[in-house]
Structures are given as structure tokens and as C-alpha cells.
């Protein structure tokens, strides 16, 4: 499954470690929320980078104490019809100021890229090769946005206000 980060297809530096496998001392790993919450203090302080795959039916509040020590948070789209992780992403980015990698996992298809970018995702485990290749083009599909989110894109309402101001300033 290709990983898209910063708009490019990259090799994944993180290794998925199963719940019953041994955790390496160093090296970048991704573990489950259950595993992580078993011993969050130790796991978030290991030498290597640590990331957590967080399920979409558990409040992200439980992650808040560890946010500045996590390299990756992977949120899950069990099917692309299930949009709970969009709310989790916005809360992590906008309310809890999480700055690490926010990765979309599960059924990640081309048609969700813009929504995901706007919600604060910056890495994507894309299901289909062709979708991953189309990422850069798809991400540019829209130039107008009606809602303010934490991604900083300016909304139509505010663009209009700016236009008004510049028009009245020019008079």
C-alpha cells in the first residue's frame, strides 16, 4: 500500500508492530492503541520514534498527555463511508495542537483527499496505486472553500470581505 506524504509517494519509515510481537528498542514503529495504553509512559519515551494507530470509536482525549512525544498518529477509516476520523483529526490539530504526522489509514481513496487535507491529515496510506499517483492533481482540484478549518485555507466568506476592503481602500 503506497504511502503519500507531502504530496509524494514515499517508502514508509515506520514498521507496523503487531500486539504480540516484541517492540524493538530503537527504530520507528507503529503500534495499536491497546498496546500503547498498556504502558504509555515507557512507550512514548523510547529512543526510536513511536506512532499509534488510534481507532475511530475512542475519544482522542486519552492521547492528549502524550501528543508532543508521538511521531505519528494513524486514524482509521474502516470504510470510506465512516467519517468519524475527520472529527478526530480536526480535534487533534485544532484543539490539541498536535504537530506530528497525522496519517489516514484504512479505505483511503482519491475522492477523500481534499476532505482529509482540510481536516489536517498530512500522510495517507492509499489503497490503490492509481489513486496515490493522482494525489498531487486531486489535491489541487478545489480552489474555493466554504468552511474554516485548521489548514489555513481562506474561506469564501473571508475572501469576499477582503475584496470589499480592498475595493473600499482603492476608492
Amino acid at each position, binding site marked *: 500500500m503506497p504511502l503519500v506524504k507531502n504530496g509524494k509517494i514515499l517508502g514508509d519509515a515506520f514498521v507496523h508492530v503487531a500486539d504480540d510481537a516484541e517492540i524493538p528498542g530503537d527504530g520507528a514503529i507503529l503500534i495499536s492503541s491497546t498496546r500503547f495504553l498498556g504502558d504509555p509512559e515507557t512507550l512514548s519515551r523510547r529512543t526510536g520514534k513511536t506512532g499509534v494507530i488510534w481507532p475511530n470509536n475512542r475519544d482522542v482525549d486519552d492521547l492528549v498527555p502524550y501528543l508532543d512525544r508521538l511521531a505519528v498518529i494513524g486514524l482509521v477509516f474502516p470504510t470510506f463511508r465512516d467519517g468519524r476520523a*475527520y472529527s478526530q483529526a480536526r480535534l487533534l490539530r485544532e484543539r490539541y495542537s498536535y504537530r506530528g504526522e497525522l496519517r489516514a489509514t484504512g479505505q483511503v481513496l482519491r475522492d477523500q483527499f481534499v476532505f482529509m487535507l482540510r481536516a489536517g491529515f498530512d500522510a495517507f496510506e492509499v489503497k490503490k496505486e492509481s489513486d496515490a499517483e493522482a494525489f498531487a492533481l486531486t489535491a489541487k*482540484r478545489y*480552489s474555493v472553500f466554504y468552511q474554516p478549518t485548521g489548514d489555513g485555507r481562506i474561506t469564501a466568506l473571508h475572501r469576499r470581505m477582503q475584496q470589499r476592503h480592498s475595493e473600499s481602500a482603492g476608492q
Partner: protein
Amino acid sequence: MYAYDELDRTLINERVEEFRDQVKRRLSGELTEDEFKILRLQNGVYLQLHAYMFRVAIPYGTLSSKQLRRLAHVARRYDRGYGHFTTRQNIQFNWIKLAELPDALSDLAEVGIHAMQTSGNNTRNVTSDQWAGVAPDEVEDPRIWSELLRQYTTLHPEFSFLPRKFKFAITASEHDRAAIKVHDIGLRLHKNAEGETGFEVLVGGGLGRTPFIAKTIKPFLAGRDLLSYVEAILRVYNQYGRRDNIYKARIKILVHELGIEKFAQEVEDEWLQMRDSALTLDDAVVEDIRSRFSYPVYEKLPQMPEELRKAAHDPHFEAWRKNSVAPHKAPGYAIVTLSLKPVGGPPGDATADQMDAIADLADKYSFGEIRVGHEQNLALPHVARRDLPALWRALDKIGVATPNVNLVSDIIACPGLDYCSLANARSIPIAQELTRRFANHDTANLIGRLHVNISGCINACGHHHVGHIGILGVEKNGEEFYQITIGGRADENAVVGTLIGPAVPYGEVADVVEDIVEAYLALRARPDELFVDTVKRLGVEPFRERVYATR
């Protein structure tokens, strides 16, 4: 009318191109039908019994003549020459070809119409009072806020994959013509004790398998907080609404399971953390949207012009005027309802030729504006009273002057088994038969206001729960049967109707409705006691007796 600017136009064009790409990928096999299904639903495309059905949004029920002509063009060019107006201010085309859909959307986009989120598990078309901006008793024009909500809900990055569909309705009048109490979020503009204008926010209304009347979650919300509060509700719903069972996924079930107090507290906790955010609507932002609504410049005209005085001698004109013409906020003007319920016709259908003719009449008599109501009729919102006789003759000629607005033959019906893949039973032929039974205008007028609503299945698209008489099609051993409820209503006193007894077969529905109406005529206290008030006073028992005594 709201005028799209360059930003609005750019966005819908970008959406059309995205959909064109999605259709292309489906036709090439790159997308599976399962994947494509969700994508097409997000753009109003259903697969029905015979063909694809295409649902186009008419936000808050306002159309320009140019837009209506374009809908006629789509009906003619891509469909079979007609369209069907729905209970949620949409229009549906029933015979669209998938490969041609992107072109149809592109034609519509040129006049500022789209089909975004007219189906699927997202925020649907924002509906409002079809008399918005012209009703005499209005607090202010609810379309300003409807448009703000339309923009806010369009392609929302967080709420495009909700547990289930989500519908907003807004009213600003004492008398609720937008059925806000049967919506996921209902908004009522009103003035508080301090004289400030704001919203009563209702939540958790809905019909379908488990009908609920919406409950008040906030008695007064300032306009500036509208979007942040709505976002808080949607966020709570997106995270905690049930996704394990499609029939329990609407917000009404979450509100019911948590209880309104607990749900309100969850929303309040969320809202307090974000109310002062970029979502706050400053006065300047609201004014900017308001400034892009154009209003007619009304002339000073007499309330009783000579033309009306003369026409009053014609009983046909008078029957129509008394039935279909409503008071307007500007003296000398009127709101005219165009009945799309001709005797023997399918409720809510209009042909392309009718749409073109209505667009021409709107240009001539209504400042180029047309409205669409949830009762599946159209309206011309700014007609000079002196023009009423001429307008009536023209409307009569094209078959949209049946004087049955709000009467027993003004039936709301879903497409039913004639088109819909979900239906258990037919709706349209039942409606057609009822319009024939009650074709005599004097009889219908004697009966008075009576709303008949028909749904062909439990999904309740015909809003049968809130019909004064509700008819629900069910299937029993492979045959069509119908459950009859009475006493429902969808207005400010909304209530779900009560079942009167066992379901009756297809062939007996019209007889049963006639029995109910006869019972009402015998039981009503006064000629002006409405059917629904008689049912309220007496309960269903006397009606049950009358209907089942001989069955």
C-alpha cells in the same frame, strides 16, 4: 434572489469536473459499483427501478426564471420531458443516462444550480419557507441564513460521511410552512424578550421508520453563533451517532437514546470550546451575503384594483383567487400558488413546456422569480393584484390553476413503486384516484383544509406520519396494503398521526378516505372546524368505527 459570485461559480464548476472524473472512472471500471455508489449519491444520483434518478437542489425553494428554463432544458434534453418536485425543495429527473450526467450538471452549473448532497449520508439541501421574504408575518428573510448554511454545509470536510443523512429547515414566520419540526435541525427565527432576533434551535425531528418531533435544544441562539453551534451538534453526532444499524443512525435516535438534556449538554460542552472561532458570523459577513440578495422594487399599487373588481364576477376566477392567492407584505401585491396537483395527475410533476411557460409568466408578472414549496407546488411570490385575472387565465391554460391548494386533492406523495426501488407499494395511482374522487371543487371546498400524504414505504418520503390523513404502503403476502393514520400535522403544532386500524388493500384506499371524510363532515362542531381539529377533539375512535364497521 441570491446572486452567485465568481467564488460560488468556481466551486460548482470544480465539483462538476470532479464528478465527470468519477463517472469516467466508473465507466472504465476503475471504480467498483460499491465505491461509485457513495460518490454518485453525494451528487444526487440514485439507481432506481428502471434507470438512474437525478435529484437537483433548489436551495430554500428559490428559483429564477432562467434557472427554471434550464431545468426544463434538462428535462427535455436528458430526460423524458418532465420533472418531479419533491417534499424537500428538490427536483428529480427519472430517466437520466449515467454517461450524460456530467453534461447535465454542467448545463445546470451555468445558471448556478447544483446537485451536491441531494442524497447520501451528508448535510442535505437546506430548505425554508417558500414564502420567505414576502410573507407578511415574517421576522426577517430566512433565506440569508439559509444561504449561509448552504455554503457552510457544502462539501464540509468533516461532515461529508455522517452516520446518516442530515436535513436542515428554517422558518421565520409564526406559521411554519417549512416543517422544521420533522427535520434533523429545525431553526425558527424569532425575537426574544429584549427584541433581538435569533434562532430557536430544534434537533432530532424526523420521519421514516421511527418518527420523532424535534425537541428544542436552545431556545435562543444569536445569529453570530449559528455556524459554531451547528458545527458542535454535527460533531457530537458524527462521533457518537450509531453506525451499526442504518435504521438507528439518524440523529433523532441519538437524541432519543441520550435524552435531550444529556445530548444538549454534550453539544454545549463542545460548543463552549469553539464558539469564538473563525465560524463566528460578524455582522459584516452576514451583511455581505444579504447584499447579494436582490429584492424587487415594488410599485405603489391599490389593494383592490379595477381588474380584480371586474373579474370577481367570474366564479371560476373567484374560486381560484380565494384558494390560491395569499397576502403579501407589500400592499397591492399577492403570493400566488401554482397547483401541481391536477385531477388525475401525479402530484408534483411538471412538464418541460409547463416549466418554460411558468418561467415566462414569472418574468411577466413576478419579477422573474419562482418558489418551490415542500407541498410539491410552485409559487409566484410577487404578483401585482391587478395582474391576477390575466395571470389566472394563463396558468389555467397550462394546467396549473386547479383551485385545490391545501384541500383534500392537494396530495403529497412520494414516487412509490412506479419508480422507486425501495417502495413496497404504489403511491401515485392512489393519489390520482383520490384527486378524481374529490374532483368537485365545491365538495373539496366544503371539506376545507385537509392534507393527505402518501408514502410507498416506511422511509416516509411522502411524510405520511404528519399528514392529516396519512397513507403508508406496506407489502403483505406479495400484495399492496395501506395503513391509514389520521391527525398528523407538520406545522408549528407538529404531531405524528394515529393509526386507525388494520391495513386495507389497494382497491379500498380511496373508499376508506371517503369514509373518513364523510365521518368528519358529520362530526365536526362547526363548518370551520378543520379536519385535524375534529380528530384532536374526538380522537380516532369515531373514525375507526366508521371505517371498519362494514369491513
